[in-house]
């Protein structure tokens, strides 16, 4: 390198040095340590004891590991697409040339500002089986009585304790293992405002000429949406999708506060089980193994998203 190169190099490194120090101390070191712990028996009270792949093998046999993974997957696979459709839909509605657009936008955005503890408490109250707002509204709409699953029991030949129990209507939401997860997903829809604002900005960047061209070609509303709007905002959708995958795999606070993982572990999320292993059972090694599996899942899903994006994400001018 020339003298000038050196000068630039040392200057550049000097400016980014806060990140380099932070990266080494707060990212690289902890990530490496947690990989090491994941091969150890470590209770915090004693030094880590090397056990090889024992933690990983135990995880494969651990019902709660699979259960929490399944629950998290269920939540992600319903909440993400639902949130995506609702937020794109709302953004499309807002993107019309209408009066009061900023008022509607503000109203839809506000819930996403609410701190998670506060929104959790609020929704516990809304979902309250007897006194909650939701069930008041539902009974007002005449949704009452019981859903019997006798035909289904009959069909599946279930008997005694295996039989599907009747579900009272309106449902007890967080108090029933069958409705607790749908309740959490519904609640997540309330917080889509963030994404709506992002999509709306994306929509407003779509060049007007494209719509004019589509009109000249005689495109109808659906064709405009399908062939102009959606391809043009696909990078934004993609970005939100990747962040959403990473985020929903880390779902923790809402379930921790609202259900504690119940009833019957129906809302026991992966990160909750990890947290319990680490700080309730002091099984740091086991928790670290879980964390590494989580990291691998995130990496694989992100890679899949990037790979598939070649087919459906349209980058303008690139």
């Amino acid at each position, binding site marked *: 390198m020339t003298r000038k190169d050196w000068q*630039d190099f040392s200057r550049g490194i000097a400016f980014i040095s806060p990140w380099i120090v932070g990266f080494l101390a707060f990212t690289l070191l*902890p990530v490496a340590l947690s990989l090491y712990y994941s091969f150890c028996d470590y209770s915090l009270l004693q030094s880590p004891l090397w056990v090889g792949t024992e933690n990983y093998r135990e995880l494969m046999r651990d019902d709660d590991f699979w259960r929490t993974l399944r629950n998290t997957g269920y939540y992600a696979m319903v909440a993400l697409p639902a949130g995506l459709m609702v937020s794109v839909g709302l953004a499309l509605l807002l993107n019309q040339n209408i009066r009061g657009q900023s008022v509607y936008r503000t109203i839809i955005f506000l819930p996403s500002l609410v701190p998670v*503890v506060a929104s959790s408490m609020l929704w516990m109250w809304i979902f309250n089986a007897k006194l909650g707002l939701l069930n008041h509204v539902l009974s007002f709409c005449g949704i009452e009585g019981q859903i019997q699953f006798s035909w289904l029991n009959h069909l599946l030949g279930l008997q005694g304790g295996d039989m599907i129990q009747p579900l009272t209507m309106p449902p007890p939401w967080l108090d029933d293992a069958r409705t607790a997860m749908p309740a959490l997903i519904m609640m997540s829809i309330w917080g889509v405002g963030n994404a709506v604002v992002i999509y709306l900005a994306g929509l407003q960047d779509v060049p007007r000429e494209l719509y004019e061209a589509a009109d000249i070609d005689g495109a109808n509303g659906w064709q405009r949406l399908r062939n102009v709007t959606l391809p043009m905002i696909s990078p934004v959708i993609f970005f939100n999708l990747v962040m959403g995958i990473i985020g929903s795999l880390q779902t923790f606070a809402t379930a921790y506060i609202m259900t504690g993982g119940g009833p019957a572990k129906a809302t026991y999320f992966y990160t909750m089980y990890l947290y319990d292993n680490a700080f309730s059972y002091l099984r740091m090694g086991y928790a670290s193994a879980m964390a590494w599996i989580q990291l691998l899942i995130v*990496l694989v899903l992100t890679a899949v998203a990037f790979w598939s994006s070649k087919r459906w994400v349209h980058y303008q001018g690139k």
Partner: protein
Amino acid sequence: MKASSGRQTPLAQRISTHIGLILISVGFILPFVWMLSTSLKTLDKTMEFPPTFIPDPVVPRNYIDVLSNPKIDFARLARNTLVIAVMSVAGTSISSALVAYGFAKIRFRGRGFLFALMLSTMMIPFPVTMVSLFTIFRWLGDHTGVQFLGTLKPLWIGAWFASAFNVFLLRQFFLTIPEELSDAARIDGCSELGIFWRVILPLSRPALTVVALFTFMGAWNDFLGPLVYIQRPSQYTLALGLQSFQSQHGGTEWHYLMAASVLVIAPVIILFFLAQRTFIEGIATTGIKG
């Protein structure tokens, strides 16, 4: 003005759009109304069937009761939360701006690689570092004499070493500042740090505001971080305090719980209305440039 406004929308369509949006808005706002209304009711009235939206009698005293409840020391919770929020905002604004300047305005070997490395760290889920950071903080306390665990430091110390997201956001903004301004300052004998401080930073107020707002909100909302690193109730943040208040009053005194929630939400909502434009534009721009 808007993309789809190439032609006049028919009246019928406009009316149906408004009706749809009004219904949706009511759905989004109803939980807030319900929260406010519950927070102003007597305990008996919260259990009334059918419920009313307008409390009768209106009991603003609930708020005083919550604020003076010894189980939820609001002043201390707010102070702890503010310490974390202010230290995080100060730390991340300074450090992230420095790093962003390095990535945006100085050409040096390895810059592209380091920048990509930094962005890729955003994918690491918090649980991966959560456990080992705990042991690192404990080790630091044992070997340096500076205690981390049992203090609020673990929750803001990281902010002083730049966050990838904020660096990215600021770098994008710095790139839009014309190089001629820096060159002019350089000819006048300004040092690189001087350019950063006197030329770039004053022009970057909008981006810095976005960083500050988001960081403040993040600190205000964080739950898992405090849950892991805070050990004594005297150091609880608002999020933790509210949660422990809830678990003690388990599902009964909803009027108090809602009043406490309103108190935690209010500062955020006020902040939003004071800086609405910055918020909306910040979210719009940060979410888009993936």
